[in-house]
């Protein structure tokens, strides 16, 4: 299958597990072995799985021993299990709504997703934020070719979450127009990992950047961030397995209010663009998709396994092959659309309902963590000290 290329799905230390689990009789057996694997290696919190304190040398040795499995040195493992339900602290209760930060700016607009390496010397107190606003407006004024350098009004604020997380919010508005046309809104946040690890000495870990606005403004903000905080801001691209997770999130947390036709849309890229066929898209009513997901997954809310999502995908591929004789597994999934969210492989994201923003942000943050080795090694270094 055109699988995830850079995220290592195959657990090196697990004996004989194949990703393409044969369906039917083997399902329970492999599901059990994967669950045991998870407990043994500890999916996300202890990268490397053995809990060894020292970093690179020992791990390099280990991959050297398994000479026949020449894998890229990536110390971080993709989690095989995710929870689709927010932890108790974040659960949206009517009483807690007031304490929730206002994510309305992120809803119903086309967001570009970036992952950011840790920011150096980012002061999030009031004076620091004022400095940042001034710095950004100066930067924009320098870049603007128009004589009127005060075209944009910049505001950099901090948003507090219920469990003391801080997110950085950047708003760049045009002075002459009202409303959102031509203005940029960006949020730098970190919704995963323990709060105490957000400050690693002089570094602040805010790995997820979501931005909406005109392209030139986005590039300007990105260059300013890189300059000011000595970090790297890279556009994030999603692999098919990430898109599957996003699809699961959209299916499980779908809103049932609207009676309008709700479908799950999956777009596959066909490598026959010159011949004429660009993409094949599947549309499945949400009800049927949910039924399928709950039939392959044991516990959709808390403990959704990646292999269960693979089974979901396999069911669809079998169905497609039976009726159309087309091998869907030769093609890559490139876009997922549900009533709640819309993600495509180039890193565009659209969240359509404000209730699900924290969950989506949490998932995106974990994707961002998987991609930046600097963040991960900092985390590992921190853990090794304890």
């Amino acid at each position, binding site marked *: 299958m055109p699988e995830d290329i850079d995220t290592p799905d195959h657990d090196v230390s697990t004996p004989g597990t194949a990703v393409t689990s044969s369906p039917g009789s083997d399902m329970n057996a492999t599901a059990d072995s994967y669950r045991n694997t998870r407990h043994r290696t500890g999916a996300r919190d202890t990268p490397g799985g053995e809990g060894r304190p020292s970093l690179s040398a020992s791990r390099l040795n280990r991959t050297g021993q398994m000479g026949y499995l020449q894998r890229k040195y990536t110390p971080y493992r993709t989690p095989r299990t995710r929870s689709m339900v927010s932890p108790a602290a974040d659960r949206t209760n009517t009483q807690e709504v007031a304490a929730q930060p206002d994510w309305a700016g992120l809803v119903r607009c086309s967001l570009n997703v970036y992952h950011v390496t840790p920011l150096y010397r980012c002061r999030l107190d009031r004076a620091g934020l004022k400095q940042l606003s001034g710095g950004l407006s100066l930067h924009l004024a320098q870049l603007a070719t128009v004589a009127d350098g005060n075209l944009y009004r910049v505001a950099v604020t901090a948003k507090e979450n219920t469990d003391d997380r801080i997110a950085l919010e950047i708003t760049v508005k045009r002075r002459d127009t009202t409303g959102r046309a031509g203005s940029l809104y960006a949020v730098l946040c970190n919704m995963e990992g323990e709060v105490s690890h957000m400050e690693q000495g002089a570094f602040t870990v805010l790995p997820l950047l979501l931005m909406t606005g005109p392209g030139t403004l986005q590039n300007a903000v990105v260059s300013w961030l890189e300059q000011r905080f000595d970090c790297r801001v890279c556009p994030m691209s999603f692999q098919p397995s990430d898109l599957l997770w996003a699809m699961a999130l959209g299916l499980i947390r779908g809103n049932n209010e609207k009676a309008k036709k709700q479908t799950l849309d999956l777009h596959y890229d*066909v490598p026959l663009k010159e011949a004429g*066929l660009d*993409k094949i898209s*599947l549309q499945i*009513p949400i009800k*049927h998709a949910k039924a*399928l997901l709950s039939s392959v997954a044991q516990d959709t809310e808390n403990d959704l396994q990646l292999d269960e999502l693979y*089974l979901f995908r396999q*069911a669809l591929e079998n169905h497609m092959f039976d009726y159309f004789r087309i091998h869907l597994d030769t093609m890559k999934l490139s876009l997922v659309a549900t009533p709640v969210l819309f993600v495509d492989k180039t890193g565009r994201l659209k969240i359509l309902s404000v209730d699900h923003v924290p969950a989506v942000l949490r998932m995106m943050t974990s994707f961002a963590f998987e991609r930046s080795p600097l963040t991960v090694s900092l985390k590992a270094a921190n853990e090794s000290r304890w």
Partner: protein
Amino acid sequence: MDTDVLRKILGRFKLPDLRQALEEWGCVAVDGEVFVGGGPKRGVVDRVVRACQRQGEEIGLEELGTLDLVYNKMYSRSRTWNAYHFTGYKKKQNDSTVSADVFQRSLGKQLFFYFRHVLCVRQYNDALWVWLMIQDKSSTMWTPSNIVHMVYYPASPYIFTSTIKAEYKKYIIQALLLTLGYSKAQFMDLSGRDVESLAELAKRKHSQKGSSRVRHNQEDASPESRTSRKRRKQDEESENEDVIPEDAEDRQWREEYTRDTFGDEPQPILENVTYKLQASFKHGGVAPSMDDQPFHMTVKFSGSNVLEGMKALGPAGIAEPPFPSYLESLPHVGKNTILLAERRKPGDGDDGGNN
């Protein structure tokens, strides 16, 4: 004369096409000097507009409509066309289908009963291109949302229209039926951007499959062309003699199958093909609890030329021949949107019935 509208329509043309368009339009005598000046298109358009103003003849809604028609003929690919099929031919009115003027007059007469309108008809090759603008309130305003374009091939029971507003649709269809002498119009589930391809597909639908393969350009009548094509292919592949394809047999089988099924000639151009599948879920053992539950799926193929792409699915290895009948017969069925629903008979197996 509405200079803004004229300027807008003229501005839509691409600069190299503008000259030809003005000649086809024929409402303004344009000499080469207008174009010699070069420069941006806006300047050229301004000069044309001034020439129109100078020449004294009034450029009214009809002339603007004709210009719009010329634009539409030139850029017909930027519009989505829907195909309608007429049935129930009554013998009486044959003449109205012959020439553009006659057609315009009789259609205009019929439409007049329903609403005030402006109508222009022109003949290009063997098709009548129609431009119709419906005026609801005042009679001098240009309402672009009420414009309908139609292409009619005389002596064939098909017509291709752009999207018509729901409120006007039945009146326009009724007027067409009365003008042409049919009794019923039905939307073929066929739409696309290229009118000629749509016409080709519509024609194919209602002809016998076997005997007309040559007519449909699926088999080339001349025996020479096939060998020359084979030779060309062999030349490409025998460039590097060190390369021995392991799957030569497989590849050849796929090519033969594709050639037999779809033919050699290029397929008509369609942008979207949609299959609505409402049959039992064939999950292959993965999800046994879904056996009795309904599962609907809509599969949409999209691209610049879907039929050619589907032809290439087999040789590329993405699809496995032999294809099911509804894929094989796609170029002949004359539809874009196909519903595959299972006939729910007790005790009967899964029989994907074509609807």
